[in-house]
């Protein structure tokens, strides 16, 4: 504020000058004030100041004009000023006045200055006193004749150097900053590393590390016994001379150096010591033994390998022995034979065993005994199979009837044989009445059997050729026959001529060649059948349906009935029996499902007069058999038991049919399942349906499909041209090539994921809810590719997927602080201490 007031005074002075020049020196004195010097002249009163205080000056000017008119006022005013300025002595003031009067007349320089000032108009853009700098000499000139001028001059001369003005603060600060910046710039690069590290750091841990490490030494140093117990202990230790480690050591040393006999042992001590040592030695020995024993215990694998080695060794030894001695070889052979017999016994009734296969491979070159053994085995197998079949069959089935016949025959044959070698060898049976009784019973049984047989045979004759054949073939077992002798044994009522026998891999023996069975019934029936044959030949062909069903009958009967097929071709039409036969065979089918595959082959294998037609029939029949097979597929547990038994007869699974209730369930199921079997489609139909559905879905969900195409058929007939009767069809307009519309490129149909999978439809419609809610449309910001994003999102982060340490590492926050603790500012030298690795 002081500056401003002085300025005002200066400008005031300028205006007053024309009236009162003598006052100026006094005012100049003020100008030399050091505070005023700081402001440059041109900046002293600028436009801003004038805007603020201009009005004030204008008023003052008016006032000055008035005061110039009334002199008295002005004088008093100036007197007042004089009083203020020069109050030390009036003499000085008077001198000044004189001086003024004299200079106003002669000093042109001053005049020019004042006149110049007068000429300068005072305006916003110019300052009246700003044109010339006011030097100190100018001011001093006026004083040179005053009393103390010399002294003053001297002091000024002394201070000449100090007169240079100091720099303004703002500028000085700017300079200082500039220099500091230059200096910093040199050293700033030393920060880059720290900053970069911090920026790149996974996380920054600002938690203070003030954990005090607790060591044993630090604890010991601080230890002071507190409490009664500790103090007592301390005392006791001191008494014992063991108050600290050093004391203990000292004690020990002293004990070692003691040679007054304290270290010597007494005899008791010695014996005691020896006892101890002996005990330890004994213990050690015991453990050694034990370990030795343990070492001998070996693993199973070890034993197995050892065993194999041993076996190999003995074998080689045996070979050597055989080379020397022939008797031994014989013995060995016998032994082998025995073992083979054993094997046979265990692996009875199958020709799938290794032994059986070998024999089969050898064919006819096998000796009689072996063949017998094999055939017996097969026979047993057949018997078992038959037994199985019989178990399941109803009493009305054909095979059952045949069995009765056979059993009756067997009973008869048995009794006849046994007639010759009656019992009576053993004790109780020696008695005559016992023998009589037995004989009587036997007779009764035989009689019954005979009757039954007669009755059944009569039935058979009445029945049909087909059944006869079934019966007769049942008596023979061509499949199980191996040798002629065996054959006669088995077929005591018939004769068999075999051209070639072929043993297959299965338990059924197939024959290649014609088998002709001749027995009484056959001979009887032969003319009859031929008669029918003739009749039919004369009467013409009966029709395919009957024939077909008959063939099924053949096909579905057990394999050993295969010869009937050949007979069937002899007598192609047996329409009279066809109905029943077919009914029966269906029964058979249900009861005996697993024959399906065999029989068709069998019927096709038949090499006889089987002409093309029979073959055709077979093929036609196959369809029917398929249905039956379908029935079989859905067989009930009852059937399943049987099959499983057949499959794994060795496993010894109980093959008996279940109790009555289970059977009932089974029957119910079967009925239901048969119904279901007919309700389902065939494979082809299912496939076809599936394919059509797939096509439909592919068309429906094709996004390239245009919606309007479905709705409107543009370009329909009649649009844009005349139509109706008698109108000539319009000639299609043809444009030159360059004007033709471009051909529409056919859009490739959308690729589907299930294109190459015929049995699969994959829905490719966009899952709207899932995609909108839980998936991203584009790769999110910091990631540049899908791959990067997927990598970042890979794997589980939570507790469920990681051990606790790894989990914590995964979710480590970017900044770690402890609340209430000061975060130390970053330090240049602070080396990053990495958190310890967590693994």
């Amino acid at each position: 504020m002081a500056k401003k007031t002085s300025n005002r005074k200066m400008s005031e002075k300028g205006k007053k000058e024309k009236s009162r020049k003598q006052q100026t020196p006094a005012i100049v004195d003020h100008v030399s004030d050091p505070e005023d010097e700081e402001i440059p002249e041109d900046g002293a009163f600028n436009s801003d100041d004038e805007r603020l205080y201009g009005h004030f000056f204008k008023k003052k000017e008016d006032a000055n004009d008035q005061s110039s008119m009334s002199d008295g006022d002005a004088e008093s005013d100036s007197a007042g000023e004089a009083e203020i300025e020069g109050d030390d002595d009036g003499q000085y003031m008077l001198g000044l006045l004189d001086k003024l009067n004299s200079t106003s007349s002669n000093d042109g320089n001053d005049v020019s200055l004042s006149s110049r000032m007068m000429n300068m108009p005072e305006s916003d853009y110019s300052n009246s006193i700003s044109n010339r700098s006011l030097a100190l000499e100018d001011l001093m000139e006026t004083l040179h004749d005053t009393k103390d001028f010399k002294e003053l001059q001297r002091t000024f001369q002394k201070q000449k150097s100090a007169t240079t003005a100091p720099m303004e603060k703002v500028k000085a600060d700017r300079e200082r900053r500039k220099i500091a910046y230059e200096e910093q710039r040199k050293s700033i690069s030393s920060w880059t590393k720290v900053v970069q590290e911090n920026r790149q750091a996974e996380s920054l841990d600002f938690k203070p590390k003030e954990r005090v490490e607790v060591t044993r030494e630090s604890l010991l140093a601080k230890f002071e016994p507190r409490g009664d117990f500790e103090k007592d202990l301390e005392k006791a230790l001191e008494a014992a001379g063991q108050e600290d480690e050093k004391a203990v050591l000292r004690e020990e040393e002293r004990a070692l150096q003691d040679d007054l006999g304290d270290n010597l042992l007494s005899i008791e001590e010695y014996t005691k010591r020896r006892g101890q040592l002996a005990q330890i030695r004994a213990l050690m020995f015991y453990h050694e033994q034990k370990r030795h024993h343990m070492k001998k215990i070996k693993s199973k694998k070890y034993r197995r390998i050892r065993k194999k080695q041993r076996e190999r060794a003995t074998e080689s030894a045996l070979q050597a022995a055989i080379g020397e001695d022939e008797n031994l070889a014989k013995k060995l052979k016998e032994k082998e034979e025995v073992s083979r017999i054993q094997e046979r016994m265990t692996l009875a009734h199958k020709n799938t065993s290794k032994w059986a296969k070998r024999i089969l491979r050898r064919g006819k070159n096998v000796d009689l005994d072996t063949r017998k053994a094999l055939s017996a085995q097969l026979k047993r197998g057949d018997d078992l199979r038959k037994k199985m079949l019989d178990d399941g069959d109803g009493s009305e089935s054909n095979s059952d009837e045949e069995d009765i016949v056979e059993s009756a025959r067997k009973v008869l044959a048995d009794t006849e044989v046994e007639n010759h070698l009656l019992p009576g060898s053993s004790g109780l049976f020696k008695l005559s009445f016992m023998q009589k009784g037995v004989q009587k019973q036997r007779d009764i049984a035989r009689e019954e059997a005979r009757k039954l047989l007669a009755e059944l045979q009569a039935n058979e004759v009445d029945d049909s050729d087909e059944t006869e054949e079934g019966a007769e073939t049942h008596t023979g077992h061509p499949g199980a026959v191996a040798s002629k002798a065996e054959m006669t044994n088995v077929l005591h009522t018939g004769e068999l001529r075999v051209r070639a026998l072929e043993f297959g891999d299965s338990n059924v023996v197939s024959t290649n060649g014609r088998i002709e069975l001749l027995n009484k019934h056959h001979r009887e029936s032969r003319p009859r059948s031929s008669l029918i044959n003739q009749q039919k030949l004369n009467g013409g062909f009966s029709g395919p349906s009957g024939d077909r069903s008959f063939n099924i009958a053949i096909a579905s009967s057990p394999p050993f009935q295969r010869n009937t097929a050949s007979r069937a071709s002899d007598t192609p039409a047996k329409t009279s029996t066809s109905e029943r036969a077919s009914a029966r065979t269906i029964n058979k089918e249900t009861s005996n499902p697993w024959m399906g595959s065999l029989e068709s082959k069998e019927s096709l294998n038949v090499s006889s007069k089987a002409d093309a037609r029979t073959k055709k029939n077979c093929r036609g029949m196959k369809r029917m058999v398929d249905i039956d097979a379908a029935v079989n597929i859905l067989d009930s547990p009852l059937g399943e038991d049987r099959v499983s038994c057949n499959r794994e007869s060795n496993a010894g699974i109980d093959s008996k049919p279940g109790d009555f209730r289970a059977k009932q369930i089974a029957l119910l199921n079967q009925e239901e399942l048969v119904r279901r079997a007919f309700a389902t489609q065939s494979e082809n139909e299912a496939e076809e349906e599936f394919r059509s559905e797939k096509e439909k879905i592919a068309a429906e969900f094709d996004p390239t499909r245009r919606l309007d195409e479905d709705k409107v058929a543009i370009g329909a007939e009649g649009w844009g041209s005349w139509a109706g009767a008698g109108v000539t069809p319009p000639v299609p307009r043809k444009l030159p090539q360059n004007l033709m519309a471009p051909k529409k490129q056919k859009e490739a149909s959308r690729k589907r994921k299930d294109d190459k999978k015929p049995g699969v439809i994959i829905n490719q419609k966009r899952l709207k809810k899932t995609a909108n809610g839980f998936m991203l449309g584009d790769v999110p910001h910091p990631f540049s590719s899908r791959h990067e994003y997927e990598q970042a999102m890979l794997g589980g982060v939570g507790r469920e997927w990681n051990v606790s340490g790894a989990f914590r590492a995964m979710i480590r926050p970017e900044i770690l602080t402890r609340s209430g603790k000061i975060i130390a500012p970053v330090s240049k030298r602070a080396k990053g201490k990495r958190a310890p690795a967590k693994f």
Partner: protein
Amino acid sequence: MTGAEHAGEDPEGESMIARGMSATVAKQQHHTLRSKKRTSTDRSLIAKYDDATRESERLSRIEKDTSSSKKLDYYKKRAMDKRIYRKDKAVKAKLQVYKAKRFEAAVAAADAQVILHTETPGMLEIEHEMERTTSLSQVELKRNHLDEQTAKQIYDLTLPYSPYGCKFDRSGRYSVLYGQRGHVALMDSYHLNLHTEFNVNERVRDATFLHNFSLMAVAQTNHTYIYDDTGTEIHKLNELSDPFALDFLPYHWLLAGIGRSGHLKYQDTSTGQLVCSQTTKLGPCHVLRQNPSTAVMHLGHSNGTVTLWSPACSKFLAKVLCHKGAPIASLAIDLSGNYMVTGGADRQIKIWDIRKFQCTHSYFVPSGVATSLDISQRRVLGIGHATHTTFWSPEAITRKCKEPYMHHHIPSCGSIDTLRFRPFEDVCAVGHGKGISSIVVPGSAEPNLDTTEYNLDPFQDKRQRREAEVRALLDKLDPNMITLDPSEIGGIEESTPDVRQERLRDKQEQANAGKRTKKQKAKKRGRSKVQTQLRRKQRNVVDQQIIKLREAREKEKAGEVGSPEVRQSEDLTPKVLQRFI
């Protein structure tokens, strides 16, 4: 304050900052960890926990998807290359760190497994070639080979309301036994105690536990009911009517059911809402199983197809023709969700790789249809067919095996209704016509518990159960998150032109969904016309001409009907029987 001044303040460098793992350090560490010598078992263990190796296949597929460079022309390819190589440094560093951390975590998990997995699984093993594991009977097993606690698990329950079914809860501690004639029992399989039993006096077709043993849903004649562990009826679910099969999705809290109408319905058991109802259009369905890894529902139909469903889609996700022309009798999916096993009425059992929808191989069931199938935690395949149960070793799922692992026959029990493996215990429960049989199948179950998963601990107490319940609820998943490939969730949508087009269309639909179409005003003009009024008056008047016209029409009709009558009769025969005519 300048930096220089500040540096002077900390001459000792005391303010040490732990900066975690930098990218370079991570890279080094990853390298050293990887190159460390390890035994093959360790390596395989680590690979099991390392997501990178596990999902590298998937990632490479994605990469192939995005940069199918064969079809691109030169400029596009160049642009693509640029895009690939212009990687953000910061992202790259972060990925590096994450990769290293994941590998570290995998190593740590592998180490932890060595310590935590105290039990090792084991199967039956033969001592010499002549032995067969199949020939080992349960009696022999019980007598000679099992410890006391396990031997206790071999037992038969003869129950009156047969045939019986059985299901376990997720921990394997409790089982619900349901007789089809109305008996429902809750059993503690650990102590072999009966917990609750009650009779609903109705036919019971299926039952399943909800999130834990305290609630179970029972499919009865008309409706599905929910009971608690004391046998109190809690809810009657009217929406799930005529149910045949039920299943519960534990992570989504959804009870799924299907029945006579062939509608697959999902009911949220936490809120009680019916989430969605989907029409299969394939008739009644008895076979319903969930894929434990994806929560997709698999339905087996009577036309031999299996359909896969999610609540997010009104149509099936996939449809597979498994057994041509033979109904699906049973179905099972392994725990990894990669393999599905189907049993058809054609007596075949087919193994499917669901990832490829491909039948890898099949087995023939020697006796009967496979009425029930189940795959244990360690992938032992159990087949119930007729009165037999056959078990196949885990290899039988991945490749064709010649012989089954075990076999058990229950004579005269009708056919087997359900076969279920017990979780975390080598036990298999078989429900059949006479009751329940429990047998031991060594090596079937996972020996070590995962205690981080909810409701999986068989020995949890009441408080733990409650806490697990709440936590499971908090972690409940949205039903729309069920997809064929669960790793899609949270990922980026496939970006083929077709998909983009579809997305656009969906967006349009969504935007237009709010707009209400202007309702057409139902007004008829000219109703009051004189002409119309007169016509109206004449409408019901029968005069000569009209009679004549009517007669003519009738005659025409009769003439027409004569010919198509034959056609119609043909049409009347059911489609399935048409081939016989």
